[in-house]
């Protein structure tokens, strides 16, 4: 998952904030964890199954294999032919899809509530009986290559994001794109996929999350019926790679045909799973980093919009992305597009000045009050979506955190002080921990109408 930079803080914080009452968890004998949350507003249900395998588990030269396997999961079992999964769900009025990230692979169906067993039967089947036929693989790998061209190769900013990750991470596999390098996709075989499937797809390492107009007892009974017979098999996990301390600033320029320059800056920062692993990360630090992102970029009133976009008019967009839910330490990333008449270098200097300021001066009471008001509201707004509530629970569980954290999450964010924000800024947002990737537009070759870049009229507007 290339971290897509979000415009507002609200969705970021919102990730966290579902109230967790009415949620139950149980574990089947084969190890499958089942988490059920009731939401009786509409006669619908969402069912998600999370496998704790993502691109960070992939060895060199097999990058992208988790995502290719995700595609192949729709290509049939002994009992159901290729694409029949999708056909059955569709005929039951369902919507379905799947997604792969650095840390996990997940499959979901949204259904009218009475159809839940249809989803369970099909998911239990493909958890253990996937065919992975050569012929299907040969076709589907082409689809994935088209996906890569579409998502990354033909999108200048996506190319920068990819280059950024390979620069910021030198040892940890977060350096590889989730979709994989094209050369690895080209050499991938169905044998590799069969091995990957056999290694990771087991109830013993999976999590089933169900949210909707359901009775937890019945859901668990149904789940036991379909998933209970799937044989247990433990997963052997490789030792997690620890990214060595960065020690000096890194820079990379990406020169590709484009019209508009772009800069992406990022600092290594801890996440919730970093706490309590012998390091010196305090439990409150990821919360403080989340509040920090809110002060800088939590909406139109936040500093980036107010000062860099509206007041100084240096940027047309500046966005922060930080997610505290990940299996391994992540990045706090800032990406920005300069306004016409301003250079990327100028904008970078202004962003760095913003970072210095948040270290030197405490956030004002008004800023903290705003961020906390947004936390409280997001906590309610996020409950408007059944799907989103399941995502919150599933992501936490999939990265090894306790979903019960959601109960106290808003309070922990509200407890963050101005000093704590300064402390994490001083500790992590330092030059020796910074990577900067810059898009340097080359002319869009002949044949394309290239319009002159309008001049913005200088610094003072």
């Amino acid at each position, binding site marked *: 998952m290339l971290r897509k930079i979000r415009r507002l803080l609200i969705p970021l914080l919102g990730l966290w904030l579902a109230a967790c009452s009415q949620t139950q968890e149980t574990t089947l004998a084969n190890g499958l964890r089942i988490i059920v949350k009731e939401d009786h507003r509409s006669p619908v249900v969402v069912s998600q199954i999370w496998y704790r395998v993502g691109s960070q588990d992939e060895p060199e030269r097999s990058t992208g294999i988790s995502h290719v396997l995700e595609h192949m999961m729709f290509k049939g079992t002994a009992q159901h032919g290729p694409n029949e999964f*999708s056909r059955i769900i569709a005929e039951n009025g369902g919507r379905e899809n799947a997604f792969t990230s650095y840390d996990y692979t997940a499959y979901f169906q949204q259904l009218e509530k009475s159809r839940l067993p249809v989803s369970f039967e099909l998911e239990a089947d493909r958890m253990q009986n996937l065919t992975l036929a050569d012929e299907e693989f040969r076709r589907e790998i082409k689809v994935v290559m088209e996906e890569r061209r579409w998502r990354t190769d033909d999108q200048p900013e996506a190319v920068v994001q990819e280059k950024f990750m390979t620069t910021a991470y030198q040892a940890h596999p977060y350096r590889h794109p989730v979709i994989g390098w094209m050369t690895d996709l080209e050499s991938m075989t169905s044998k590799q996929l069969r091995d990957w499937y056999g290694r990771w797809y087991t109830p013993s390492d999976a999590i089933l999350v169900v949210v909707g107009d359901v009775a937890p007892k019945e859901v668990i009974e149904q789940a036991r019926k379909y998933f209970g017979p799937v044989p247990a098999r433990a997963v052997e996990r490789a030792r997690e790679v620890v990214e060595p301390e960065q020690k000096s600033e890194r820079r990379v320029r990406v020169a590709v045909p484009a019209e508009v320059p772009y800069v992406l800056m990022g600092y290594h920062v801890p996440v919730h799973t970093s706490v309590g692993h012998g390091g010196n990360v305090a439990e409150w630090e990821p919360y403080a980093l989340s509040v920090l992102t809110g002060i800088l970029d939590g909406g139109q009133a936040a500093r980036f919009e107010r000062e860099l976009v509206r007041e100084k008019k240096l940027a047309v967009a500046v966005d922060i992305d930080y997610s505290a839910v990940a299996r391994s330490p992540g990045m706090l990333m800032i990406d920005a597009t300069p306004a016409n008449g301003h250079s990327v270098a100028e904008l970078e200097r202004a962003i760095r000045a913003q970072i210095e300021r948040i270290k030197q001066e405490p956030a004002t009471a008004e800023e903290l009050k705003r961020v906390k008001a947004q936390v409280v509201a997001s906590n309610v707004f996020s409950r408007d979506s059944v799907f989103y509530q399941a995502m919150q629970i599933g992501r936490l569980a999939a990265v090894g955190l306790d979903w019960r954290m959601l109960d106290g999450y808003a309070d922990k964010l509200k407890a963050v002080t101005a000093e704590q924000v300064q402390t994490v800024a001083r500790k992590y947002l330092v030059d020796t921990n910074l990577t900067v990737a810059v898009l340097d537009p080359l002319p869009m070759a002949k044949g394309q109408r290239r319009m002159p870049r309008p001049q913005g009229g200088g610094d003072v507007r």
Partner: protein
Amino acid sequence: MFARTLVFLGLLFISVAASAGPKIHHWTLENGARIYFVEAHELPMLQIRAVFDAGSSRDPAGKAGLARLTSSMLDEGTGNLGADDIAGQFEGLGAEFGAGADRDMATVDLRSLSDAALLDPALDLFAKILAAPSFPAASLERQREQVLVALQKDMQSPGAVADKTFYRELYGDHPYAHDPLGDMTSVKAITREDLLAHYRSYYVGANAWLVIVGDASKRQARKIAERTMGQLPAGRAALPIPLVRTLYAPLQKQVAFPAATQTHILLGQTGMRRGDPDYFPLYVGNYILGGGGLVSRLSTEVREKQGLSYSVYSYFLPLRKAGPMIVGLQTKNTQRDQALNVVRKVISDFVAKGPTEKELNAAKKHITGGFPLRLDSNAKIAENLAVIAFYDLPLTYLDDFIPRVEAVTVEQIRKAFWQRVHPNQMVTVVVGGSR
């Protein structure tokens, strides 16, 4: 996230549905604004959406982008408040404000907690913005620059280039032809007076609808409607926009995009308006042709059988006047002719023979079986209500939806496609690199 397929199509375009739809309260204010309210107390939140017939089809000649710029300028100032004050007040209350404009509609949204201490000041500010935006000149210059950069970014995206080219070729000099964002020349020509004129003409009671969904009683909703919309002048309803021409000959447009590894292909024609008598046969038929995600005919032939594209789809976008019917895909440059041939064949076959009984049954099961998913949040209910309101669909539209889908026959679909979809008279846009 890397999803297996795109989720966006299908949900967006046919956002309306329903059997046991929610209970809709409807009334009209003195100034002509039409109010649609659904009471929902499960969550302590309230969502409102003001809709105006003020989309980009109202842009005057040479001023493409005016409607969009007007809507995005709304929260730049009102009275003695500036953009910083407005943003600070909304966000300090935890409220979310947003505004936008597509080809038909301009929308202004507010989402707030229903706690009166938060909701009241948020509604006050929302009302001020609607009634008296100040459109500060300096803000206009900044926003104009932002639009110009967005237009430049579009030029580095083959998908965006394809989309703009398609609408331009299909609609010619009809107001649906231009990109709602405008173009480099038109955006530079827009003045503050243009914004004021657009606002004064179109942001008026006779041209307005208001949707309220959430934690309020009917009495409260009446007050909210008065407070936010009641103060607008009655004004006049916007004049009808012109009818859409029909193309009687195929039109092919190639745009070289040397940097691209993939070719983006769009083909289509004018489709239907909202409320079209053939809406249900075309909608259900399109689900079978290319609307049904991974199980449609297009997806089966192009993606599942031949691996030619990650995403391939078709849809009708019903608008006030005939919106487009679009078929789209992306494939690597060397496969573009092959992919185009497959797509054309799938469309021609479907138009010639229609769906099978089995396909129709599967489509009906999907559409009716998944009906509750269309209305499972306040946000989705509000979106549906806005469409019902703006396009003047019956209040029973959601309740009638399932029976009307159930009533569609193979013959109706075949006939509707045969009469209205013309594979040999389509606009085809091909944007990509060299082979």
